[in-house]
């Protein structure tokens, strides 16, 4: 791009093009979604097996999520450093998920109050809500549809209230994190490939 004076039409065209370019900037390798998805899927399945007395574990499988949370935070921090631009969309989505995880921690305190499977239903509602907001903010139809399905699953889980609730949570983890995680990963690889082709 050269340093030259513009006509009014050219200016307006340039502004629209650059705003579109900036808003379209996207850097997400899907790793965070896959880590969360597989961790919650595995913990849910282990909890189901423990509840069915197929296996025995010395601790609640969901405690595994505590170290994973720190590992994930470290990965997220590294990924943030790779980003060449920080968009307002990214920031808003981050706030939505921080809210989700803090709400989950608050909801888990219900376990100490003796409430068991009901917590899973509440977590599914929070998950559906956070996913819906993400889908609407990022204009990602898959997330909007999966959020509605998740909210329906949450409503259904209120009538379940047994160890099968863990299976519902495992399904939600696959739907909300694992599938989009792979979608993001494949998109990210395509972008990297295009960038490499441009470079050489």
């Amino acid at each position, binding site marked *: *791009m050269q340093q030259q004076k513009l006509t*009014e039409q050219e200016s307006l065209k340039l502004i629209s093009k*650059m705003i579109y370019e900036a808003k379209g900037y996207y850097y997400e390798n899907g790793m965070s979604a896959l880590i969360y998805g597989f961790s919650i899927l595995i913990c849910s399945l282990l909890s189901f097996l423990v509840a069915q007395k197929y296996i025995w574990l010395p601790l609640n499988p969901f405690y595994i999520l505590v170290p994973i949370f720190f590992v994930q935070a470290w990965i997220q921090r590294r990924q943030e450093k790779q980003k060449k631009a*920080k968009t307002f969309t990214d920031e808003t989505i981050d706030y939505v998920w921080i809210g989700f995880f803090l709400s989950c921690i608050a909801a888990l305190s219900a376990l100490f109050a003796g409430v068991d499977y009901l917590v899973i239903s509440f977590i599914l509602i929070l998950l559906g809500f956070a996913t819906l907001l993400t889908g609407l903010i990022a204009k990602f139809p898959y997330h909007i549809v999966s959020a509605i399905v998740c909210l329906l699953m949450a409503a259904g889980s209120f009538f379940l209230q047994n160890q099968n609730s863990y299976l519902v949570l495992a399904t939600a983890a696959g739907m909300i994190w694992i599938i989009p995680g792979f979608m993001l990963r494949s998109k990210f690889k395509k972008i990297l490939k295009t960038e490499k082709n441009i470079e050489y």
Partner: protein
Amino acid sequence: MFKDLDPILHSQLRLAVISLLIGVKEAEFTFLKEKTNATAGNLSVQIQKLKDAGYIDVIKKFKDNYPQTICKITTKGIKAFEEYVKNLQYYLGKK
């Protein structure tokens, strides 16, 4: 009353930089270079002019032992951009 178009913004590269920065929270120099297809030297000069006008903030730091330049639009820059677009619309409407 409408004034003349801001001369700081009414040039291709500076306008491109400001338009990019209006859409993001902050951006690295490499991002601006990539999107504008400008040379590093030319872009540096234009960024400095925008900084001198108080339209953007430039933060220099190190990332993995490499220098990193981050640009962010200021409140003054947002106001100038809005005014520029308003004047542009007026001029286009007059034609």
